[in-house]
């Protein structure tokens, strides 16, 4: 049986893709998802709940924070947080602020309980805020 040249080239392409793909993609197990760290350092009644957020793996760190409802929250984005991640939003709680420097705090009072997503204004970095 005679095999066409084109068929051989096609098979060659497949073989290269499979071998190179196995070699190059096989160990690509670096995860960009952050460790879920619960920041449950909750202040007492009436006090401001201070939360410090940094950046790790191109995302907010910690990516999960826990706060109490009806008590003011002060979020500080440290100087590792750069670019559009500084435009911090919690859509469901009506929070949206561009904190140019760590001195500019994001202050709000969550008035409803639940789990809400926080993110940068473009949705590139994100995490969860649990209001209890």
């Amino acid at each position, binding site marked *: 049986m005679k095999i066409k040249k084109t*068929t051989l080239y*096609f098979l060659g392409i497949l073989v*290269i893709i499979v071998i*190179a793909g196995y070699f190059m*993609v096989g160990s690509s197990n670096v995860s960009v998802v952050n460790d879920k760290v619960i920041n449950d350092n909750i202040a007492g009644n009436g006090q401001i709940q201070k939360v410090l957020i940094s950046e790790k793996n*191109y995302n907010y760190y910690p990516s999960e924070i826990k706060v109490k409802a009806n008590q003011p929250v002060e979020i500080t984005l440290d100087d590792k947080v*750069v*670019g559009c991640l500084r435009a911090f939003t919690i859509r469901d709680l009506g929070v949206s602020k561009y904190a140019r420097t760590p001195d500019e705090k994001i202050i709000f009072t969550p008035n409803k309980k639940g789990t809400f997503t926080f993110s940068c204004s473009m949705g*590139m970095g994100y995490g969860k805020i649990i209001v209890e």
Partner: protein
Amino acid sequence: MTFKEFTKSLSGGEAEGELIKTIFISLAVSVILLGILYFFKLKYVADFRPKYGFFLFLAMLGYSMIIPSVRYVRAYREFTCMSGMMIGMTIGMIAGFLPGYFIGATNGMFWGSMFGMVIGISLGIWNGRCCGVMGVMEGTMAGFMGGLMGAMTAVMMYNDNLRAAGVVVLAISAFILFGLNYMVYQETREAERKHNDGELFVIFWSFVLTVVTIIFMIYGPRSILFT
């Protein structure tokens, strides 16, 4: 000039018959080059495979799809203004978007955009000039847009299935380039082949694009988020 005839001509002896062969040669050159570089140098780069391997692999696949189309267009050289615009736009856009995306995923938005725009505009003008100033204009604009969009998409998807999106983007680009080749086939049925780039052309451009991408991705500058 049906689609069936086109697929049949892929195994013929004319310019169309060189498409599959060109993909094979380009891919082989890139993989061999990467293998050699890996053996002597890149294996000492920290986290080379997890960090860069996947995107380099996709970039090599991307180049092995772009180069055959460039070679195919150059085989006929003369097209109508309308076809020239389409050629300049398609080559410019894909050649800008794919490198922009892959460099954007490892080096950040600014450097991804710069890299994508340089490759996209260069190839867009080179191919679009077959048909006058309109093709050149379209190649320039598409390369400019593609480079910016590729890098921007990669950075915005960083925490949202970046790798899966890369595969989808590559698959769609392959489909578009296949469509371009079919269009060129339809436009050139009555025309005679004007130019014949040898295998050296494919080897040279695969080599250059792969080396430039590897050097830029691993040793090149990066945006603040990626340092």
